[in-house]
């Protein structure tokens, strides 16, 4: 499934025949980087606040509370009211929100309504599983995606190019669970090469860990490979038609150097920003693979807790994934800044 944004915000063309840029004294390099990072960090704070507000309101709107579960068979209205008061659910929404946010900052995500375990502990138990699968999927996705993308751009119009484009559009059409199950049939049932369920922590048995996350990582990476290949191909094709490529050819630079030093860096821009959009889907998509492979991941816990109406756990997992997504997009923006310093300076 691809929700890649079709068009990024192209910086608006400069206003009516404004005075062209007169030569400005050169600012020290580090100052620009810091200013750029500062502005990025500044933006992610309100984004974090909005995202967590949405998460909180979702929990609040559900109107669920732990009373039924805890009250047991003595579930009389008074008992339920007392339990709601214990959890502070009778306070006005604003105070509940502030209290919840204060908790977030302190790392206290509240307690699961079903088994009383602190939410943060539950999440930390399962975070390594989700991160290892998502991480492996990202690595496989990036490596295979760029290989296919570059190949398709270099041999544009060839059979390889057509094959890559066909694969990309087909992969985008496959729901993730179909991909996962097909991979299981191939690698687990037919070839009997890799296990089809469960999880072995890296610390316990690295080889076993790699074998067990192999299929889920492949299943999750299919979307990334498809999108990255397509994005990189279009980026490279348009970059190859730029004037500075002609300039480089005229200077006698070798084609390989032109491609990897000059063109790839500019073509990688849209591909990288697409990757940033992929991260939330990677963590979200993990729900499917985690439930198919019965891996104790964060995604599956969030989904099951949501179904059980265990609001604090759901909110906790959403907040943690929001933090991960923001960290990733910050990282990718920094990488973009390094690859294309010009964009920073121009803004």
């Amino acid at each position, binding site marked *: 499934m691809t929700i890649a944004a079709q068009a990024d915000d192209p910086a608006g063309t400069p206003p009516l025949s404004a005075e062209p840029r007169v030569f400005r004294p050169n600012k020290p390099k580090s100052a620009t980087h810091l200013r750029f990072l500062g502005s990025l960090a500044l933006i992610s704070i309100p984004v974090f606040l909005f995202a967590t507000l949405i998460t909180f309101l979702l929990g609040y709107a559900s109107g669920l509370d732990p009373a039924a579960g805890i009250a047991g068979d003595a579930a009389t209205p008074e008992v339920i009211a007392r339990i709601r008061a214990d959890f502070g659910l009778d306070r006005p929404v604003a105070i509940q929100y502030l209290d919840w946010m204060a908790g977030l900052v302190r790392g206290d995500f509240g307690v699961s309504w079903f088994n009383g375990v602190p939410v943060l502990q539950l999440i930390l138990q399962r975070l390594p599983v989700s991160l290892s699968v998502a991480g492996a999927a990202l690595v496989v996705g990036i490596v295979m995606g760029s290989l296919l993308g570059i190949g398709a751009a270099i041999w544009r119009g060839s059979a390889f190019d057509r094959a890559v484009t066909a694969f990309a559009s087909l992969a985008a059409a496959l729901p993730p669970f179909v991909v996962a199950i097909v991979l299981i049939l191939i690698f687990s049932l037919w070839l009997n090469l890799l296990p089809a369920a469960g999880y072995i922590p890296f610390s316990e048995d690295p080889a076993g860990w790699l074998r067990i996350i192999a299929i889920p990582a492949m299943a999750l990476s299919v979307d990334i490979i498809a999108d990255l290949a397509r994005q990189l191909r279009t980026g490279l094709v348009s970059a190859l038609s730029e004037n500075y490529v002609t*300039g480089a050819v005229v200077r006698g630079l070798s084609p390989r150097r032109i491609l990897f030093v000059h063109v790839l860096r500019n073509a990688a821009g849209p591909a990288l920003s697409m990757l940033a959009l992929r991260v939330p889907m990677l963590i979200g998509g993990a729900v499917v693979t985690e439930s198919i492979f019965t891996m104790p991941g964060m995604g599956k816990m969030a989904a099951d807790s949501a179904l059980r109406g265990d609001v604090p756990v759901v909110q906790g997992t959403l907040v943690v994934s929001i933090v991960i997504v923001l960290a990733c997009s910050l990282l990718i923006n920094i990488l973009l800044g390094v690859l294309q310093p010009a964009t920073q300076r121009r803004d």
Partner: protein
Amino acid sequence: MNRPANILDFPQRAARRAPPSAPPAEPALLCVDNLSIADRSGRMLVDGVAFEVPRGGTIGIVGESGSGKSLTCRAILGLLPPGLNVASGTIHYRGVDLAQLDRRGWRGLRGIELSAVFQDPASYLNPSIPVGKQLVEALRATQRLDKGAARQRAFALLRRVGLADAEAVFHQYAFELSGGMAQRVLIAIAISGGPRLLIADEATTALDVTVQAEVLALLDELRREQDLTLIFVSHDLAVVSEICEHVVVMRDGAIIEAGKTAEVLKKPAHPYTRSLIENHRRYTIDAIPLDDAEIAEAPPEPRSTPLLSISDLRAAYGDRAVLDGIDLEIDRGEILGLIGETGSGKTTILRSILGLVTPETGEIRFRGEDILALRGGALRAFRRSSHIQYAFQDPLRSLDPDLPIAASIGEALDIRGGITAAQRDDRVAEALRAVGLDEGLADRLPRDLSGGQRQRAVIARALVLDPAILLLDEPVSALDAVNRIHVLELMRSLADDRGIAQIFISHDLGSIAGITDRVAVLHRGRIVEAGPTEALIANPTHPYTRRLLASVLHLDDGTSGQPRHAFIGA
């Protein structure tokens, strides 16, 4: 039909072997013989072109856009865009036929033997890598130099092309350089490999007049100093005449005339060449009969309350002052020329009048009423009454590409509303007629019109509500010779017949000199000189005006290729 030639031309098919070496090297460094270039459908874009370039010589290729002059150069460099290929003919360079070379054949030629600089220089530098690094990269690609030596060589080259502060420029990115500076960097890169042949394809077209002169001087000097053979391509005869001994005139893919520049200018054989020379001469300075007597007694008209008066206008862009105290006036039926280089602030004056820029101090009065203070509703009402209208420089970008021109022209009427569709169409037809456009063009899309027609449509849009003042921003600089004259005559008739005052800004003194009544010369936000056009051109008082006049190139038929003034460092 072979696969589209990919610029990088990665070897995935058997490479074409270079043919056995041609007959012994002839005296000419480059010999193009019966060269034809065809597109996929076989249409000949360049047909049977042949010319020779003697070692150390300079040859200019002149022609309109679409004459095939750039394609010929691209063929010489082996850079034909995908879809075009050399149908027949040979390009011999020191015994090697460049037309048949494969990728491996080109190794050791580009950057070392042949090199080139192009129009729009900044786009030929990688936007994400500092320009200095790209110069070092070019140096190390063509010669065995370690990093340190290459850096020193790079600084030397940058200084040699006139970039005094080489250390600063080294670390800058392409978009941070002005056009002139970027071209100098490209020239430094081009000569870094010590090439024998340098091709300049419209290298100075996008530059300001003064910067253009400096770059031409630089090229000429480097040519003599490094024993370079130069091919200079341009649509501007004056520029070519300035720097090239020989000239070749191309039209519709063929050479219609060739020879020594001086002779061709004196006795053009082909009628097309003759019209080229004629058009160029007509509206440069020579076009105005210099009769001192007549200027002296031009009586100053009596000054009633001026239609529009600007007093002590100051504006800044961030921390940089753009306008530093402007005082101007304009009366009914008068055309005021505003001339100055890019960055001199002339556009900011127009934008202040239109309320698009809020100046720091100063007053702008229209018929005595201060329009600077207008805001929100009042500003919108003033604009709806369309006393002052604006004709944009680039008609293609200022007309909605998806709307027929009738809709754009009638837009002001639709905004004000209150009239029937029939009345609206009449007013649009009348406006079209006023600018000399056939009413049948009304439902055409902008892209289906010629440059001149589009420019007239923009002016028609401004006229539809009978403005008092028309502001024109570089209305003719993008037009070819023929249309340029028509538009200038139209402007003159609007002033004389309908009394529409016009402020006409341009960086091209030629077109201003032709039709304006008074002219003001702007330099770095200050009016250095103003007055009746003829008088000012006849004897400019301010040194900057004098330098501006001098830099307008004359079609000089006397001396051959001598640079008019010594090369001035930036």
